[in-house]
Structures are given as structure tokens and as C-alpha cells.
């Protein structure tokens, strides 16, 4: 059993858990610049990073399980348990590392993950991954590496279950390679009803020429969860990101993204919607970066938030970082309450104020859910939101 307090660990301490020298060298180089994660890390300023990293965790040691067959991929505490028959999965060294990721946890996560779960996607498919956490007081680090072959359409649907993982911390993330003219549709739902685990996820997506990357994330409920995402977009590719966040109680939910136009003719659009209840905090820290040679760029960013309570706190930072001169770009952010005129319209038709309010808020969220094309996934997500509709007094 190894106990770990991350806030008291230095680089050497982390290296002790990593056997891969090449990875150590790479991470050392990058972390010497970024420094180890802590409250001084800019993108974690409003996140509870200090609290999370200063707890003592038992580092969960992954083992190699006998892999069963199932409709979905099931990963329990970072251990691959089962998978569909036709899917190629292997374990590989966790050394597929982006040299320029902005997030220091990305490197820490790589160092702590012994092996990455590697998915080779050779034909078009739709796949669901169930992430299950059921260890208490543990640090659970793992990573998934996905390689999508050229010309393939891949839809990934991720869900999380972790009621039993009280006081645990999960580090996880995807490293995805999207081949030329591929399509990668990634839909992620993280629904937490009572506080259990915390998570810092750190993803990296590399999109080759003409590839399409589409992410839709749905964050619901409680918990301290941050998702970092960096996407590098090559010539003629595009990224379409949509985020819907409904937070309640004492949740802190963060989407920290960096979508980078690396080459010409890249198109990015990013839309976020937040509904914040109780004392919750949501963070939308989203940079769209357009590099010098990335001419003919298109970039649109928007965030709309509704605060249901004056104790809720929205940190909204959509940012365009532009180093080229040929582009079309826009960005905006609004935070507010519900339009009184909309409520009145409904009341004037006999619908009481409370119900009207609820209908309007769910309408605001439903617009984004409706953008999910896969009907089965859409139904599943709608059901999760309908549970809140039934349950919550908003």
C-alpha cells in the first residue's frame, strides 16, 4: 500500500511511481516549466485543487483482469474488465504524450498511470465506455489511448458511476488520434447525485487533415470535477464543442479547454450553457488559439449562463488568442436570470410561476441536448435531466 499526498510530493516522488524513462524525461522537461499542480496553477485558480491534492490517498494499483465480453467497454478503477467482441483493445505504455499540453495534471496523470488502455478503431462504430469507481479514499490514475484509422467514423459515449468511491480522486484522460478525413464524435455524461469522488481529467485530441471532431459534454449535479481538453487541429479540420452544465449543492465543475488552429482552414465552434443552483460553482475557461500560419480560420465561441441563486458562482472566460490576420471570429458570454417576460407569458396561460420557471430552464438546456444526433444516447441524456426535473425544486 502506498499512501500519497500529492501536494507534498515533488517530481522525484512522482517519478518513483513511473518506470518509463522516456516519459520521465519528457514530463520533467514540461513540468519544470508548468510546475506541479497547486493553487498557483492559473487554470485551477477557481477550482478546489488545493483541497483535493492535500488529502492522503491510497494509490490504487491496477491489475490485469481477465477480459470478459460485453456490449459496452467497462473500466473499473482504471482496470479494463470487459469489451465488445469485435473491438481491439490492448495495454500499452502510457508514453503517447503531447509535448505542449497546458495542463500539468496531464503529465502527472501519465506518470502515475502504469499502462494505458489502447483502443484501435479500424472500422466505423459506436462505442459506450462505462467508467466505474468503487474504492474509497483512493487515488485512481489511468488513461485511454485511442487511435482512429483514416476515413473511419467513431462515436464514443462515456458515462461514469462512482457513488461508492467516497473521498477518492480520479485522474484520467483520453489521448485521441483522429486520422485524415475521420470523424470523432465524443459524448460524455457525468451525473453525480451525492458527493463521492473528485476528478481531474486531462484530454488531448489530435485531429489530422480534414478530420472532424465533435464533443458534447453534459455535467450534472454535485462533485468537484475538472475536465481539461486540448485539441490540435490540422489543415481543413474542424472542431465543434458543446457543453451543458447543471450544477447544484456545493459542486465545482470545470471545463478548461484549449482548441488550437495549427494550420490553415480550420473551423472551430464552441457553445456552453450553464445552469447553476445552490452554492455551486461552474468554470468555463476556454481558449481558442489561432496560430500564426493558421490562416482562413473560423472561430466562434459562446457561453450563456443562468444563475438560479445569488450564491451560485459562474467563472466564464471564453477567450480568443489570435496570431494570424486572416480570420472570422466571434465570442460572447452572458450571465443572467430568466427573462421575466417569458415567465409572464406562461403564467398568462394559466401555468404557475414555479412550473413556468422550470419549463424555461429545461428548455434552455434541452436545446443543447437536442443537438445529440444518436437517438438512444439523446434519450439516455434526457432521462438524466428529467430526473432532475422531477427531483429538484428550481
Amino acid at each position, binding site marked *: 500500500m502506498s499512501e500519497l499526498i500529492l501536494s507534498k510530493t515533488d517530481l522525484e516522488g512522482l517519478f518513483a511511481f513511473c518506470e518509463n524513462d522516456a516519459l520521465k524525461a519528457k514530463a520533467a522537461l514540461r513540468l519544470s516549466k508548468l510546475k506541479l499542480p497547486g493553487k498557483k496553477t492559473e487554470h485551477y485558480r477557481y477550482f478546489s485543487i488545493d483541497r483535493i491534492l492535500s488529502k492522503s490517498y491510497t494509490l490504487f494499483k491496477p491489475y490485469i483482469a481477465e477480459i470478459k465480453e460485453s456490449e459496452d467497454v467497462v473500466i473499473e478503477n482504471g482496470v479494463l474488465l470487459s469489451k465488445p467482441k469485435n473491438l481491439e483493445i490492448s495495454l500499452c505504455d502510457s508514453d503517447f504524450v503531447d509535448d505542449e499540453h497546458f495542463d500539468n495534471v496531464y503529465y502527472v496523470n501519465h506518470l502515475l498511470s502504469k499502462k494505458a488502455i489502447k483502443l484501435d478503431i479500424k472500422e466505423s462504430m459506436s462505442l459506450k465506455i462505462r467508467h466505474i469507481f468503487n474504492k474509497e479514499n483512493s487515488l485512481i490514475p489511468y488513461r485511454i489511448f485511442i487511435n482512429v484509422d483514416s476515413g473511419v467514423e467513431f462515436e464514443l459515449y462515456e458515462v461514469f458511476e462512482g457513488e461508492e468511491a467516497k473521498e477518492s480522486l480520479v485522474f484520467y484522460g483520453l489521448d485521441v488520434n483522429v486520422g485524415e478525413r475521420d470523424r470523432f464524435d465524443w459524448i460524455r455524461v457525468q451525473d453525480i447525485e451525492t458527493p463521492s469522488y473528485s476528478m481531474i481529467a486531462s484530454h488531448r485530441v489530435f485531429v489530422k487533415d480534414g478530420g472532424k471532431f465533435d464533443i458534447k459534454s453534459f455535467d450534472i449535479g454535485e462533485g468537484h470535477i475538472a475536465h481539461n481538453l486540448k485539441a490540435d487541429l490540422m489543415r481543413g479540420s474542424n472542431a465543434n464543442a458543446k457543453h451543458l452544465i447543471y450544477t447544484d449543492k456545493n459542486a465545482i465543475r470545470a471545463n478548461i479547454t484549449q482548441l488550437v488552429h495549427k494550420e490553415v482552414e480550420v473551423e472551430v465552434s464552441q457553445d456552453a450553457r450553464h445552469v447553476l443552483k445552490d452554492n455551486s460553482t461552474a468554470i468555463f475557461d476556454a481558449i481558442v488559439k489561432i496560430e500564426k500560419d493558421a490562416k482562413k480560420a473560423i472561430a466562434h465561441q459562446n457561453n450563456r449562463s443562468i444563475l438560479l441563486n445569488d450564491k451560485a458562482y459562474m467563472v466564464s472566460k471564453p477567450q480568443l488568442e489570435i496570431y494570424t490576420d486572416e480570420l472570422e471570429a466571434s465570442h460572447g458570454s452572458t450571465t443572467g436570470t430568466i427573462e421575466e417576460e417569458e415567465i409572464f*407569458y406562461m403564467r398568462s*396561460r394559466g401555468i404557475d*410561476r414555479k412550473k413556468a420557471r422550470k419549463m424555461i430552464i429545461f428548455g434552455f438546456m434541452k436545446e443543447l441536448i437536442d443537438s445529440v444526433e444518436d437517438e438512444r444516447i439523446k434519450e439516455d441524456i434526457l432521462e438524466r435531466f428529467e430526473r432532475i426535473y422531477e427531483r429538484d425544486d428550481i
Partner: protein
Amino acid sequence: MMMEIKNLRSKIGDKEILKGLNLNLEKGKVHAIMGPNGAGKSTLSKTIVGHYEVEVTEGDILYKGESIVDMEPEDRALRGIFMSFQNPVEVPGVTNAYFLRTAVNAKREFEGKEPLNPAEFLKKAREYANFLGMKPEMLNRSLNVGFSGGEKKRNEILQMLMLEPDLIILDEIDSGLDIDALKAVSEGINKIKSEDRTFLIITHYSRILDYVNPDYIHVLQDGKIVKTGDYSLVKVLEQEGYKAIEEER
């Protein structure tokens, strides 16, 4: 009497807009209100339905003999008061059908009736939509979002038909309508005219009045009803303008 408005004064912000207005609306009759821009016509209808911007400072409104000035807007609606908005608001993500069914069932519940199930509801809604020349897919779209001016007005009439109110206030329902839409809207009105129902039609034009045959024409000027007459008053107004009435006073 369907409604008695007595010496009504109301303000929006600090500005007094209705300045001692008196008006009786008879059961089974069609009343029309005309009057210059800014006279207070929309404010009158907003006051009747309990709009949050309007504050009643004096006077009373009796609906079926009962004062409603302190009543919540939804309670007024459930008791049968309906107003079509001059500018209906857009509500993204809430489908027209879901909204309408919720409203219809809220009223049914109030009346102690069983709720309509989705199939029964849809059948009825489609029938009325068709009657009004609305495409059925309008029911699946978000409430008023991206509806054209004419579509919004037809949608208001659709709500009126579905809710079967007793007192119906139509605020410039005819503005911006093409000939077909005006006809459809007028037919919608005529369809539910009855001895138990009262209409209050606010308009600037005689076109719609030619279709619906009002029993009374009232002129609202500077926050008061300054003249009441029969249909012939419309022609006078059209020829001589509101100035003539002002001079008469």
C-alpha cells in the same frame, strides 16, 4: 356583465398611463377599442391580465362580479381571461405542443377535469392548427422561436381556441397580417363567438372589424375611454382621425 372596469388608474414605472378609465364589457358581445399610439391600449390589456410592469393605483376591475386586481396572472387565466400579446415572446427549447398541453391541462385541472392525454391533445391541436392554416410542424417547434409575425399571431389564436376562455382580449392581433392570415384569424374568432363569451379587440384598422362585427366601438385616448358608439364610429374615425373626437370634447 363580464367585466366592469371602474375609475381605473395604473402606472408603469413612475408614469401614470390609465387615468381613471371606465369600461363595461358585456357578456356575449364583441367590443373594439381604437385609439392613437401610446394612448394606453396595451397597458389596459396588461392591467387586466396582471402584467408585472403595471401597478394599479386606484379603481377596480370586476370579472364576473369578483375583483381581480390582486389576483395572480395564472389565476386570472385559469378563471377564463385570455390576452393575445401584441409581441409574443420567444421561449427556446420549450415546444409549442408541450407548452400548449401544459396550459390546457392546467386549466382542466382547475376545472376539476381529467387531463388530456398527449394523443387526444395532439388530435385537437392539429385540427385547430389546420383550421388556422398552420403547418403541423409548428407544434413541434420551440414556442414562437423564429416564427414570422403572422405565424406568431396565428399561434396566439391557436392558444385561444385550445383554452376556450370566457373573456378574450386581442391586442393588435391583425397588425402585420397578410390577407389570408387576417381571414384565418378572423375565422378563428368567429368560430368561438358565443353568448357566454366576450371579446375585446384592440385595433387600428377596420379590416378585422368588418369580419367580426363588433357590437361596440370605444375610443381610448390619453388613458381614458372618451367615446363609445356602434360600428359607424369606425368610419368617422377613419375619415376624420382622432383629432375630431378631441375637439368634440
